[in-house]
């Protein structure tokens, strides 16, 4: 499968600093996004540290597959999922330690959402309320559960999904990176099909833009970078109350024949290659 990706981040229309951070590591097909919290610019520290740690640990794991793994080994997971799980546990430790060592950073933390693609197999690692969506046959399907109070209330049947969207307590998280010495990390594995589009986003997008609008934009903009920029723009047009960060990854079937082989050369320069920092 051919993978192309793009990402965008924006401070939004209300806030003065951007506490979101993302990285696209094209050679690894690794996509990481974090939304920091904790006042006085410490949210930025937390999200950047979390993203850097995850990326570094995954790269090291790629070079040396026998590098030690952190956290509980869940049975049945692919090596990539185990590495990702370990990376997120390590990121939690690093952010937590940094906050312990620097009293001014007390209370800082971050959400973290990462997607790692290995052939047709997608591994998702997740803590917090940033989200991963899969657009397939026109349907936008969330691959992560929000670790927020309102989402937990919906799961327990105390609130309806609509009531949760209108709640004042949407920003209250039950799990985040770096706030406790240990954290529970969700891992999901999903098989990918040609034509699938993957979306990673911070809550700055999902609070401002509805799922049908997101699905429509992803379908209308086949180039991942334009789709990501368009989604950020939509969030800002709807008020942009929070930082907004979006990564879009699309999977196209491997073209066959010599003509498409020529075209593939041209497409290589078009996609979102290299890594992008989140400022």
């Amino acid at each position, binding site marked *: 499968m051919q993978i192309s990706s793009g990402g965008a981040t924006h401070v939004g229309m209300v806030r003065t600093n951007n506490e979101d951070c993302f990285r696209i590591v094209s050679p690894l097909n690794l996509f990481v996004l974090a*939304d920091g*919290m904790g*006042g006085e610019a410490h949210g930025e520290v937390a999200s950047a540290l979390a993203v850097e740690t995850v990326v570094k640990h995954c790269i090291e794991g790629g070079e040396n597959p026998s590098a030690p793994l952190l956290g509980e080994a869940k049975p049945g997971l692919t090596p990539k999922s185990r590495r990702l799980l370990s990376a997120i546990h390590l990121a939690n430790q690093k952010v937590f330690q940094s906050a312990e060592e620097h009293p001014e950073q007390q209370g800082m*933390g971050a*959400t973290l959402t990462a997607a790692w693609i290995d052939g*047709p*197999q997608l591994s998702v690692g997740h803590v917090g*309320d940033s989200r991963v969506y*899969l657009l*397939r*046959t026109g*349907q936008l*399907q*969330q*691959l*992560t*559960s*929000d670790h927020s*109070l309102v*989402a*937990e*209330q*919906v*799961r*327990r*049947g*105390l609130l*309806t*999904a609509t009531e*949760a969207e209108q*709640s*004042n*307590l*949407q*920003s*209250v*998280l*039950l*799990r*985040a990176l770096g*706030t*406790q010495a240990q954290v529970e990390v969700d891992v*999901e*594995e*999903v*098989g*990918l*099909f040609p034509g699938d589009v993957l979306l990673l986003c911070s*809550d700055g997008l999902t609070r401002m833009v509805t799922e049908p609008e997101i699905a429509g934009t992803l379908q209308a903009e086949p180039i991942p970078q334009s789709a990501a920029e368009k989604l950020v723009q939509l969030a800002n047009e709807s008020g942009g*109350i929070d930082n907004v960060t979006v990564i879009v990854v699309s999977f196209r079937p491997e073209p066959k024949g010599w003509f498409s082989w020529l075209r593939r050369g041209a497409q290589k320069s078009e996609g979102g290659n290299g890594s992008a920092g989140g400022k």
Partner: protein
Amino acid sequence: MAKLSLMFEEKLVKEVPVGSRPVRIGRSPDNDLVVDNLAVSNDHARVYFEAGRLVVEDRGSLNGTFVNDLRVERATLHDGDSIWVGKHHIKVDATGDAPLPYESGRKTTAPMINETMVLDTKVRRDMLQQAAAMGERTQFAAGRIRVPTIVVLSGRTDAKEYVLTNKLTTIGKSAMATIKLRGWFKPQMAAQINQRDDGYYIGSGDKIPIVNGVAIPGPTRLNDGDLVELSGVRLNFIVRE
């Protein structure tokens, strides 16, 4: 106090008040409102107060619960509404007050929290408990372990039963599918089931699934006992406890 009147045609069968305990409606004799009709499930629906509002909740019944002709899974009731189960209907008299002393004004007066925050374990427990105080039954529901399962009734698949453990379950011939279809001319990705916070939703893939005899117009929530037909297989969605 609010009350429910079970009616058959225009005859009153039974009347019950709605107190702090949910009113259970169904065919089995241990219900508060027993509806003796084969179209009604043993545990069909419940009516209770939540945050000062009267709510009806379908218990995953086979033939559904209707409020004024509209099929519902969960709906807020108003005075004069009619709940239909099979050929019976239940008249809603919601003129009484809610028995729970829950102050429904709390939600509107709570300050908007803009800054993202994390609840530490103690605060979190307290807050969830406070939320659960809205209705003890919901806490019971959370305590039970519910295992959503797809049982293959007919057709060729790689297993006879699948427990839905992932956020996304794919049905198709592809090697990437969870529920693998066997045989010629089967679609690679026939349909998909997405776990959301409020339940499991089936959506189309290369085929449009038929749920309980009706082709789905879009992603549709699966209820306990639903029958799904697609690409020559018949599947039963069951929630085991």
